[in-house]
């Protein structure tokens, strides 16, 4: 079966690009009709798309490469603030017809700045493992938050307001499709097997000519880039950013998505991202019992499906679910 998620390179991998194009087209078409959607559902749908980008990109770091990072919210913050600042500064100077270009530039800038920070965070990962690395990434995330909290140019503690609303369903899901494409194709290539090899056994990987340092840093940089893009989307979706939104609990949320989806399983992670974004909304009717139920569901899921929600049988035929 020609598919993005098939681990075999033998069949037509050209399929992967077709999926990407189809995904982007679908997103754009749906987005044309989005004016008719209820704004609440539209907002939630965009939240889901952003969660997908965050979870899939973290999956490259945590799932495929096996680096336990707790700093994804930090990358998201960096990307979000950079993108928002650019569009705030430039949007008065740009005519309406060029606004999409400005938005694209802002997202790319956000991604690049986040990637740069990812490079910085990736370097300690050369020396640290497991819990120690987790702490260091958590620390980086918190440092970013503290710095933003003290930066008056981005509103400091009172937040950055008045960010133009550029994020649409189309943008979000097109970028989600690109993220999925990049992570999935990257991992499903001879080059990309290196990520998993490093995860499985660093010493053996090194002895097979795979440079673990390079792979780990690459994973951090690419993961951070997309987290930054997600931050940019988030900023132009909520139209307001405050540093408290990017504390380590946000990182934990994303980690839960990755683990619940099954480390290294792209489809599972996508579904987990959607489920965990929808769940609190679905539970709203339970009012003040909502978060209690939410936490119980997480515990229950870990007991029932510890290997990830959607592992068995989904890995290979998962395309239908995207």
């Amino acid at each position, binding site marked *: 079966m020609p598919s993005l998620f098939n681990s075999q390179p033998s069949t037509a991998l050209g399929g992967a690009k077709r999926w990407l194009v189809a995904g982007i087209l679908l997103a754009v078409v749906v987005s044309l009709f989005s004016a008719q959607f209820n704004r609440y559902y539209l907002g939630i749908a965009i939240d889901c798309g952003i969660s997908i980008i965050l979870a899939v990109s973290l999956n490259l770091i945590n799932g495929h490469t096996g680096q336990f990072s707790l700093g994804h919210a930090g990358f998201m913050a960096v990307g979000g603030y950079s993108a928002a600042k650019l569009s705030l500064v430039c949007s008065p100077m740009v005519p309406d017809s060029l606004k999409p270009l400005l938005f694209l530039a802002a997202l790319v800038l956000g991604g690049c700045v986040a990637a740069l920070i990812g490079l910085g965070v990736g370097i300690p990962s050369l020396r640290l493992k497991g819990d120690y690395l987790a702490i260091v990434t958590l620390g980086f995330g918190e*440092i970013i938050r503290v710095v933003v909290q003290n930066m008056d140019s981005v509103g400091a503690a009172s937040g950055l307001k008045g960010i133009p609303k550029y994020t649409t369903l189309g943008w979000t899901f097109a970028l989600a499709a690109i993220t999925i494409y990049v992570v999935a194709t990257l991992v499903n290539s001879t080059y990309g097997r290196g990520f998993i090899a490093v995860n499985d056994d660093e010493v053996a990987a090194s002895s097979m000519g795979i440079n673990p340092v390079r792979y780990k840093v690459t994973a951090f940089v690419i993961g951070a880039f997309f987290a930054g893009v997600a931050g940019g989307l988030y900023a132009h979706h909520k139209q307001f950013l405050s540093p408290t939104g990017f504390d380590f609990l946000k990182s934990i949320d994303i980690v839960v998505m990755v683990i619940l989806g099954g480390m290294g399983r792209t489809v599972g992670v996508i579904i987990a991202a959607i489920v965990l974004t929808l769940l609190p909304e679905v539970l709203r009717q339970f009012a003040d019992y909502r978060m209690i139920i939410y936490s119980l569901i997480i515990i229950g899921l870990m007991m029932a499906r510890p290997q990830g929600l959607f592992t068995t049988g989904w890995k290979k035929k998962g395309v239908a679910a995207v």
Partner: protein
Amino acid sequence: MEWFFQQLINGLALGSIYALIALGYTMVYGVLRFINFAHSDVLMLGAYAAFFIAPAIQPLVPLPSLTGALLVTLFSALICAGIGILIEFLAYRPLRTRPKLTVLITAIGVSLFIEFTCQHKAVFGADTKPFPTLLPSTDFHLGSLLVSSNDLVVMFVTVLLLVGLWFVVQKTKVGTAMRAVSFNQQAAALMGVNINRIISFTFGLGSALAAVAGILYAMKAPGIEPLMGVQPGIRAFIAAVLGGIGNLPGAALGGLLLGLLETFVGGISGLSSYRDGIAFAILILILLFKPAGLLGKSSVEKV
């Protein structure tokens, strides 16, 4: 100079509490190799237990008094030990053979569950409650220095518990079993160690420590609320890693260092707003040079 010594005392007092909490983290980590995120919530439950027990025993033992404080602490520690054992039994034991990350997420789930449940108005409610005075407190003047008796109590209790814990782990039969389980669970089981009992004991002991830390923390800052454990919990977690997780003296050292660092940085104008960030930055620097923490042994992988 006077300023320096005052800050030193402040820092040591704060660090002692971090150290005490970190001991609990590190002990559970030593035996089970995972970070018990719910530890900080057990700390909160300890403070609430004392909050409810204190008025209950007031008719029998006058408060504030030393006996009263000891009694309240003892009961709270027992309650929390029970809670800790229960958490382990219900949430972690079924996952014993599963990957550590699974247990980690479950621990986060348990932590959220306790926090949200306690915030519910039918339980404790979200508002801050005044913590009763358990110990009569006085301030000692050493020249121009001011030392609160509470701070001295905190430091004393930390040292006492650290020594006690060290004794339990190193010199008693159950401690030997704990170390055996930590070293190799299967081998320990084959040697006739009752793994379940040892792990329950570890959780009970760790949670009792958390209760004591919670009460001391509430004595220092006598307003308690369901999320009071989160912030010191993260700090203690950092402290445990800083000292080398799984290492008891390391946890104490890490806690003290972090407490001192926060206090001194907090006291510098212009830097105080970066306090949380600087603590982390120094932690990262230390870990870059000592990847397994200050006292942790970096395990060289055998090839």
